[in-house]
């Protein structure tokens, strides 16, 4: 959806950052599982921590902590919600 600014896939959301779900690209069963987790548009998701091998990643979703593999998370597009660490993001946001 074009109205989302600075979209990344959930799999690329840096740890400690929050994103707002813009779009789900999965199909069928996978899509339903993701929806059941409460991952509908406008949901705030935070990337919490990664497993020792770097995948899967645990996300805070509507009060629960859910681990998703990269394959699943890359189906979800999020807009960066707040970025306390990155100045460049603010700059980008400011231009928009």
């Amino acid at each position, binding site marked *: 959806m074009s109205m989302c600014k600075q979209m990344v896939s959930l799999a690329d959301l840096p740890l400690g950052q929050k994103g707002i779900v813009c779009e789900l690209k999965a199909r069928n069963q996978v899509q339903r599982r993701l*929806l*059941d987790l*409460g991952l509908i548009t406008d949901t705030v998701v935070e990337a919490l*921590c990664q497993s*020792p091998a770097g995948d899967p990643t*645990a996300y805070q979703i509507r009060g629960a902590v859910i681990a998703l593999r990269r394959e699943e998370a890359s189906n979800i597009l999020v807009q960066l919600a707040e970025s306390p660490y990155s100045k460049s993001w603010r700059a980008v946001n400011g231009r928009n």
Partner: protein
Amino acid sequence: MEETRRPRSLGALADTKKEADDVVVALAGNPNTGKSTVFNQLTGLRQHTGNWPGKTVASARGRYVHRGQEFTVIDLPGTYSLLANSVEEEIARDFICSGSPQTTVVVTDATCLERNLNLALQIMEITTQVVVCVNLLDEAKRKQISVDLAKLAELLGVPVVGTNARDGKGLTELKDTIYQVARGQINPRPYPLTYDEPLEAALAQLLPLLQPKIADGNRARWLALRLLEQGAVGDYGESNPELEQKLQEVISYLQAQQIDREQLRDRMVSCLVRQAEKIAKQVVSFGKADYNSLDRNIDKIVTSRLFGIPIMLTLLGLAFWITIVGANYPSQLIFNFFFAIEGRLTRLFMHYGWPDFLHGLLVLGVYRTLAWVISVMLPPMAIFFPLFTLLEDLGYLPRIAFNLDHYFKKACAHGKQALTMCMGFGCNAAGVSACRIIDSPRERIIAIVTNNFVPCNGRFPLLIALSSIFFVTGTSLGSSFARALLILSLIVSSVLITFVVSRLLSQTVLKGLPTSFALELPPYRKPQLGRILLRSLLDRTIFVLARAVVVAAPAGALVWLMANLSVGSGTLLAHTANWLHPFAQLIGLDGYILLAFILGLPANEIVIPIVLMSYAQTGTLIDFSNLAELRTILIQNGWTWLTALCTMLFSLNHWPCGTTLLTIRNETQSNKWTILSLLVPTVTGFVLCFLVAQGVRLLGLV
């Protein structure tokens, strides 16, 4: 028109024949909300509880009496939703739809209410007879989360009861409310969920055709939604051309607005989630924003790149070490006790002049085997099992699955297989049942077939006993650490074997790619120490031991008979063992050990006792006055460290026990997978022991 589909795949639920006037109560809820604890508190039953999602794999049922009324409670599998079509969800949905439960209690987690309301709203669409139970209030209080129960009841239109099931708080009120709803003293009026515009327009078209047949307005709405979802009247009722035509009209109308079936489902779920969010916003207030910060910080450490795996291994090793150190002394005590009694029994037999045959069969056969089983097996079980339950109760197990998922993915298997393996540590049959938490059939079969590579509580003491006899002797602190390390490395090797075999299976008979994966990491919970001790001792240890005893008694008698029935030049036992011997030697064992493994099919616990029995019966009868003499007996019978190593390896890798095989047959409904589950570990064991035995001999190490 039939109102709903007949329940499918209900299994045990299908024959929920209630006792005469019982009120049937269904317990539904998300996984990990303390549903099983509520069930136990209501019924006084002791269903095993644990802090990981999907623990209730089979539906339990129990009964209780309240105010003179009898209730049958059905504990449905924990689900997040009723819409995604997994087996568990179908079981839960069909049971609620079937109309059997007069009341459905939705157990929710006060610390995560929003997510839980999603399911509650779905259930309230199906039935009005709903009680919402907001559980885990103490935990919520500790996290400074408060839930306005009265407001929640008002917004939902159904009674809401707050509980803290762990200590029984609120249970009487819950029972009262269930009673009142079942008796019609309270009539819940759930507010129907409003969907978005095109959907509501579609519903408005369908409802007039359904409503004359279905009095309950909410139920008619629910049925209309399912018809839209399904795209045809199909098996929702007998043919109804008028309804079918209308349905197709409505579907075209929706399609004209770019809403296909897939979209339709997405919209339904989105509406549910938004409604849950809206309600939660009004009833839940947070005292502090970072209420989960402790959990998050713990997670950052136990799943970190640097410490994640080492912490996991340390915890497991520590559990082994405590077991080894702790089991030694009680083993000796129990041993002394039993053999003192054996002396008395023998004197009793002599005193009354009972026949030698009877003394041999009962005392030297049955009694002595039982004594071995209990003194060698009980202490390690009684220590390891509670320790393991402690980790389970804390909520650590899902973190193990999280840490290991990457490797399971590489093996084309499911990360939740780690959870089923953890269950296998307790009992492989339980581990196999737990495989139901894996949605994908392919990955579930992989988990079932490979579960036996994890040593269960019944095989574990064999590892402890042999490691302390042959590898690290001595009683110093250092030697007990070394023993724990040895066992840890055996376990790590069996986990590696699991990865390799899983990968081989997914490249051959179970071809396929890994499917979707979502694993909940539940909040850490303060374990209930007293309960853990009691439960794991009473429920598991005694249960497993009782099973071993039941099997050991006839096996002891059989071995004694075989040792005392002569055929030709030798005893039956010697003949059988000699016949097995050449083959057994190839894999580093001897005929008696292999025979013990075969006789141990019903229960692995009896393998070492049977080996000892056989030796005692064949050689001169050694008077075991000390457990440490075990070493002498084994060495006198030709054991070397290689024999011990191969016995340990074979114990880790051989056919599953009888109970596990039956469970596999039940779970897979397939002879093919049952046979594969028998062959895979057996062949692995033969190959592994052969390579080790021949390798060591070739190198001249023994």
